């Protein structure tokens, strides 16, 4: 299907965060999750199994944990009988949280757009496994979550992160937002918990993890935010950033490469070659992040097709032209594989 175009050397990521790099302070989100799971009766040995973490280290506030440990902690919590509700509850408390200089950045952001900008810039600390990305048209903002190595923890993390943004908005604006939530995962066992925590418009098995919100919610000013505190936090963080620049994970870096070339995506061999590694070692490294090349490839192309239809307002023929060289049937088939429905259905059911 894809004609492999040569990749521009400037596009190719040359460094990424290893799965074992200890970069996330354990007393940030992990500690909050541990507190919640313990309050809900989860035994410590089950909670911390194979994470290599000790409660005392976390409480001392000095331990740093790796993506692999964080993901393992979350998959442990997923074994809890009420994991869906825990994810939502944890998420509602995640932002602005208690994360050193990151918290005033979110707490004093003048509006949601600025808060999301902060979330994006500091995603390696605020949401290391799932990266945010957003577009808008004239009426709506689209906040998408892309794989940063969440793997099996994705359903938990995507619930939590969407609840986090919702919770932050409610907390800062004092208003109950009326947003659309699209989840890639299948139908939950407790739809009611989602309704209580996210509102009435929650959809599942949609192929994407996305929030759709009215544009004005992104830009409406939040009361009681201090421009001084916001700007101080930004400067502090910028200073810190200059000394240690945290890097994207390999899945996130690859996603960006693939979406930039969505109209003629490189295949596994070309990508591996460009990254100066063998295809099998690329596969192994992606497996290490609990994902695989095809799933990143599909995610990038689906997101690109949604960008074309929602933001650029292209019709089906034009999108098929760009993504499948005019083969409409082929595009429809692919779209069905990604989302379980035809582009027209998707548009009708899920888009506001």
């Amino acid at each position, binding site marked *: 299907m894809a004609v492999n175009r040569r990749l521009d050397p400037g596009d190719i990521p040359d460094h990424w965060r290893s799965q074992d790099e200890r970069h996330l302070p354990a007393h940030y989100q992990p500690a909050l999750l541990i*507190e*919640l799971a313990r*309050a*809900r*009766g989860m035994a410590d040995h089950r909670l911390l199994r194979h994470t290599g973490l000790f409660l005392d280290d976390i409480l001392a506030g000095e331990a740093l944990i790796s993506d692999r440990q964080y993901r393992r902690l979350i998959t442990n919590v997923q074994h809890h*009988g*009420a994991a869906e*509700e825990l994810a*939502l*509850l944890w998420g*509602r*408390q995640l932002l602005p949280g208690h994360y050193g200089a990151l918290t005033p950045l979110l707490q004093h952001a003048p509006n949601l757009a600025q808060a999301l900008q902060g979330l994006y810039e500091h995603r390696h600390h605020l949401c290391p496994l799932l990266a945010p990305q957003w577009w808008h048209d004239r009426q709506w903002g689209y906040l998408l979550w892309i794989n940063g190595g969440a793997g099996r923890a994705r359903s938990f993390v995507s619930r939590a992160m969407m609840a986090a943004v919702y*919770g932050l908005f*409610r*907390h800062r604006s004092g208003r*109950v937002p009326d947003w659309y939530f699209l989840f890639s995962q299948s139908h939950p066992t*407790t739809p*009611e*918990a*989602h*309704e*209580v*925590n996210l509102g*009435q418009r929650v959809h599942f098995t949609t192929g994407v993890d996305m929030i759709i919100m009215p544009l004005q919610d992104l830009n409406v000013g939040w009361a009681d935010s201090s421009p001084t505190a916001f700007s101080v936090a930004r400067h502090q963080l910028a200073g810190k950033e200059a000394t240690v620049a945290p890097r994207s994970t390999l899945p996130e870096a690859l996603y960006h490469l693939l979406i930039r070339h969505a109209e003629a995506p490189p295949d596994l061999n070309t990508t591996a070659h460009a990254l100066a590694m063998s295809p099998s070692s690329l596969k192994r490294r992606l497996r290490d992040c609990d994902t695989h090349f095809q799933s990143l490839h599909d995610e990038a192309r689906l997101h690109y097709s949604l960008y074309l239809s929602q933001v650029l307002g292209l019709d089906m023929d034009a999108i098929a032209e760009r993504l499948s060289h005019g083969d409409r049937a082929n595009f429809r088939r692919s779209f069905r594989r990604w989302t379980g429905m035809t582009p027209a259905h998707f548009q009708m059911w899920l888009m506001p």
Partner: protein
Amino acid sequence: MAQTLKLHSLKWLCVALYLPLSLIAAFMVGDPKGWDGIDWLDVFGEGGGALLVLGWALLILGSRPAGTVSNLIFAGLGLIFVSLWQDNLDEFLLIPDVQLWDTWLENLPMPIGMVMLTLGLVRWYGEQRILMSQLSKRERFMREHRSVDPVTRLASAAYLSQQLEIELKRARQDCSPVSLVMIDLDDFDRINRRFGFEEGDRMLQSVTELLLLNLRDGDLLCHYGGDRFAVMLAQTGETMAAIITRELIAAVHHFAYRTGREGERISITASAGVALALSASPQDLMARANRALASAKEQGADGCESAA
């Protein structure tokens, strides 16, 4: 279970002592039959039965506090076990008939044990009825332990949906209305943010008890999800439902909740939405009550709203 079993440690000690003693006594007076003389089907039947009875005792005592009922049931099962066990020993050893104690131990404990077990079960039944009447506002006529919320110990939305189905069917026959109330704590996030999850859960438990106290017999309180409760009011019309809802909201408003650690007073308010149905599906009724709740929230905290 281990915790509950500790309450009955003396009883288990009796069983543990009886087993070796009976073996020693049998070996002292009896002669081994040899492998050829053993009827393995009998061994399987009697010995297996004895072990099963022991298993029952373990399950029942593991799930019960100490008390007369537990003692009676244990004594009954223990005596039945003695009978079966003694019977089983005969399969391995030839015990002469002059040893009357063996015959007695084989035959006498069984009927006595049966009587004691029966007495225990009758008293258990009485006890269970008292418990059921206490639980009636939480579970009505059906028990499904899987759908109980671990925090509030209330039944879940799935259970509510089943019960609404039953109640709506009856409502259509009798032409009596059913009302559904959704109650949501205002700004519950703030509690979790300020005091932590443990305090939030503790508050939900307290509010659960408070709401239960303010309901009539026959009403059903469920945990809908998060900090939202659902109350099914069977055979209740619009006016009565509105009165009860206002009372529930007032009860929450006047509730002097104090935090577990510092005893700090936190004022809480709740909002509610009411929907009434003569004929509708449970999903439709719940959706209408939720919409009414959303519009009550929009009007401001601490109020209630009825669905159109």
